[in-house]
């Protein structure tokens, strides 16, 4: 269950996998950098529900064939350069969505349901371009059209969390979205700041914020594993480093430079 390094964990993910990445505060940057190092390709990314630095980096490194997303940006550091460029030149397939539709697709998977109905979306051009979303008559109000979203079942959910125990239980605290990711995905790989000897489920105060090991396929320690993004109560985002990425990511050499530097820094921390 507990791997020696993030690189070992990264190698568990085959090329071509469908990967769910949560939007913030739990972004597995070290794991992502090691996925790039492992030479992974053809990833289908689902952003939950939006994406940022890691998604852009994976696109810029040529690891991605499609992105299902409600939006990708670098937040205060501006547009996501590789995402934007990849759409312009058609090198990735974009499946535009809206936040609750991505959650609904994952919730359908969590329930083992073939679809989930959702209000909204009707009359939007998102719907026009998504042939995989169906419109049906609301069976309880036949004149109302309602959208049905297909199940989203990722092969892997990947995220970074503060703490795991030896059994592979993962403490996520108030980030209950990560529980949804683990339930909805076939497998879940997690990096953590540290591993504790106590059992997280046995402590009544920690249990409500803990995802049981049953859902977890592998864990590795990655100190600072979300850097340069933030991990609440541990470290803040490094705006300078993200802004630097935004600049460098405009060229292939720039991305390589940024990856090399951050891969060394993040792996060296462990």
């Amino acid at each position, binding site marked *: 269950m507990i791997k020696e390094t993030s690189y070992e964990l990264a190698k568990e993910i085959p090329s071509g996998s469908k990967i769910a990445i949560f939007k913030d505060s739990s972004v597995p940057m070290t794991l992502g950098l090691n996925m790039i190092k492992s030479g992974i390709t053809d990833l289908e990314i689902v952003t939950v529900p939006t994406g940022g630095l890691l998604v852009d980096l994976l696109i810029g490194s040529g690891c991605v064939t499609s992105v299902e997303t409600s939006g990708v940006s670098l937040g205060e550091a501006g547009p996501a350069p590789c*995402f934007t460029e990849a759409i312009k030149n058609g090198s990735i397939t974009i499946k535009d969505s809206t936040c609750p539709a991505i959650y609904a697709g994952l919730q359908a998977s969590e329930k083992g349901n073939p679809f989930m109905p959702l209000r909204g979306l009707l009359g939007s051009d998102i719907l026009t371009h998504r042939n995989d979303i169906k419109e049906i008559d609301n069976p309880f109000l036949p004149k109302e059209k309602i959208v049905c979203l297909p199940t989203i079942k990722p092969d892997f959910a990947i995220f970074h969390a503060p703490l795991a125990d030896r059994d592979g239980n993962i403490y996520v605290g108030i980030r209950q979205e990560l529980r949804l990711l683990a339930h909805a995905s076939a497998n879940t790989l997690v990096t953590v700041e540290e591993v504790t000897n106590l059992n997280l489920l046995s402590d009544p105060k920690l249990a409500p914020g803990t995802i049981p090991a049953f859902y977890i396929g592998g864990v590795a320690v990655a100190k600072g594993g979300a850097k340069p993004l933030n991990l609440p109560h541990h470290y803040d985002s490094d705006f300078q480093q993200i802004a630097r990425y935004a600049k460098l990511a405009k060229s292939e050499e720039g991305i390589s430079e940024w990856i090399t530097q951050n891969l060394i820094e993040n792996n060296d921390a462990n």
Partner: protein
Amino acid sequence: MKFNSQEFLIHTIATLIQPSNTIAVGVLSPIPGSAALLSQQLSKQTKKKVFILGSSNPKFKTNHGVEIFDLAGQGRIDSFFLSGGQIDGIANINLTGIGPYPKQHTRWSGAFGSAYLYFLIPQVILFREKHNREVLVESVDFISAPGSSPKDTYRTGGPTHLVTNLCVFDFNREEKQFYLRSIHPKHSLEEVLDNTGFNFRYSPNPAITRGPSDAVLEILRTEVSEEISEIYPEFAKKIWS
């Protein structure tokens, strides 16, 4: 007291949402966020609730990323804010991009929650500081979220106002048309007409948007600025230091 343009816009928006009990604010929206907090401070006795996406303060945060959408679906949110790379005369918004889809020559980040929340929150205020013909267009290139829907679509929400750096519009949902509500001080009807790409209704002598009183400015610069500097530190620094 003197005030800057951001303070003016914060006050303008706060006035529009004053009747609301529950206000949600999207990511990276410091001016609407400040307006929501100001509105909360101005009606302390009624216990307004403000949700700010992306805040890590438990006071403003939801427990789960999906919760804000569920709350909207439950009808528990009164007011919300949206913007657009393009906004057109029937309040359609485009947050996606320009040019033939999918290989658009101009690509923005994406629709975020707009294609859902625009349908379900009773008061959605469109806010875009940049008022020009590139933004306010006759017809958007891509409808990320439509401003109105046919009668048989379940829709409990939609646009009520559009606020820019020049003026405030009301949106009439029956007529699917913007009405000029007021022009900000130092700006003119001519300027608004010149810079708006869609037709709208107006009176020849439009009202002037009222600025914040000294008492309101005082609250804005003390209680609100303190709360805001926790959530949007860069913005607070820029405006109040």
